[in-house]
């Protein structure tokens, strides 16, 4: 189908976008890459009165790497992340995650800010943000504020973003020395949203895992930081006994849903499988280059 009728305005500045959101309230939607919004408009699943185009806002662009970590403007597209040497050096988890997002033609247009703001429970960037302990920078009527990813995702497509708010940037803290990553995702077809996925990080030092971060996606209304499983793995060698305890803890802390792809029980099983694969990667003695 074709999208319903709507008005369209290019925001000139971030403040202009916020003012337009304030003026039009629920009638208005922001559009950046539009790779989720356009599909829903074509299906007429939503019918906003006004689309506010934010793709020209320089304030939302740019990727910088510094001593305290990475900053990604909200308009950074998935392809830029995939190809960025700064990201490969400073947050290689994201480099590993990017190819799982849809296909090149969609990655060329879809943005990390859009993915974070839309908060699809099976999307890659919200889970990465959680695993990396990223901070979401929000611009709104009251100014700019920063919200940790752990607080940002509230529920199904529900976030800290209030009326008049937009995602301005994503900040990823500098990674601890010796940190390793593993990004795992199960889909029926390449590029589909995950049935279950896992963004995993841990320091591997002297045969022990430290500071593990396990962010599962596709297993609930929002990405889940598996804190009980993380606690079981912290300080362990990732051996069979530790994995047994971690899998048991994971089963208890996940509350997945049934859908046409998989039952909740299948999702728990797949989550345990991904955890085993990820820990095998994180503890692999041949992994260091």
């Amino acid at each position, binding site marked *: 189908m074709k999208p319903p*009728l*709507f008005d*369209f305005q290019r925001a000139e500045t971030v403040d202009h976008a916020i003012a337009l959101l304030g003026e039009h309230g629920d009638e208005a939607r922001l559009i950046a890459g*539009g790779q989720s919004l*356009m599909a829903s408009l074509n299906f007429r699943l939503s019918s906003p009165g006004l*689309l506010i*185009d934010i793709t020209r806002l320089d304030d939302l662009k740019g990727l910088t790497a510094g001593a305290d970590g990475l900053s990604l403007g909200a308009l950074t597209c998935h392809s830029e992340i995939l190809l960025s040497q700064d990201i490969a050096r400073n947050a290689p988890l994201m480099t590993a995650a990017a190819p799982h997002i849809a296909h090149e033609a*969609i990655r060329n*247009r879809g943005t990390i800010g859009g993915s974070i703001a839309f908060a699809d429970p099976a999307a890659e960037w919200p889970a990465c943000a959680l695993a990396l302990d990223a901070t979401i920078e929000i611009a709104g009527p009251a100014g700019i504020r920063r919200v940790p990813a752990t607080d940002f995702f509230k529920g199904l497509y529900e976030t800290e973003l209030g009326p008049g708010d937009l995602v301005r940037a994503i900040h990823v803290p500098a990674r601890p020395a010796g940190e390793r990553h593993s990004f795992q995702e199960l889909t029926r077809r390449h590029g589909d949203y995950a049935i279950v996925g896992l963004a995993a990080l841990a320091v591997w030092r002297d045969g022990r895992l430290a500071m593990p971060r396990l962010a599962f996606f596709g297993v609930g209304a929002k990405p889940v930081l598996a804190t009980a499983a993380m606690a079981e793995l912290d300080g362990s060698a990732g051996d069979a006994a530790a994995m047994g305890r971690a899998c048991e803890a994971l089963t208890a802390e996940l509350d997945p849903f049934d859908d046409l792809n998989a039952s909740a029980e299948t999702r728990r099983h797949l989550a345990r499988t991904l955890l085993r694969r990820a820990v095998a990667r994180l503890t692999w003695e041949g992994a260091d280059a």
Partner: protein
Amino acid sequence: MPESIPVSLTVNGRRVEATIPARLTIVDFLRDHLGLTGTHVGCAHGVCGACTVRVDGAIIRGCLTLTAQLDGGTIETIEGVADSGEIADLQEAFYARNAMQCGFCTPGMLLTAASLKARGRPVSRQEIRDHISGNLCRCTGYQAIVDAIDTVVNTDGVNADSDGGRR
């Protein structure tokens, strides 16, 4: 708050000025306003890849992109890259390998294959499959399509391969 938007685009090297409805996607603009019907509309929600076009040098989904957002942009369609000779080798290989049946997916397949070729390095057949995984061929002629892309991208006749190489 306008429902009609003035845009200025470069399409296949030609300057185009138009005033268009806000909701008009670029694929509908190309087809219905410019008569460039080589770009197809399949699923209209970003799954099939038939609407693939280039914007500022990068392939995108024509059905998921508003024309109004592309003001000032440079668009290349299958007509443009075919006329310029840029994809002549891919067209020839698709013909030689019978890599099209009904032909509906072919323009999108060719532009997607061209973006793989532009990487300028040998690729495995698995990489070719991954790369075209966002382009659906409902005739299921994938084997021939992968063959055709393989011959062009891996010009030295060798691919970095795990699944048996050329057939």
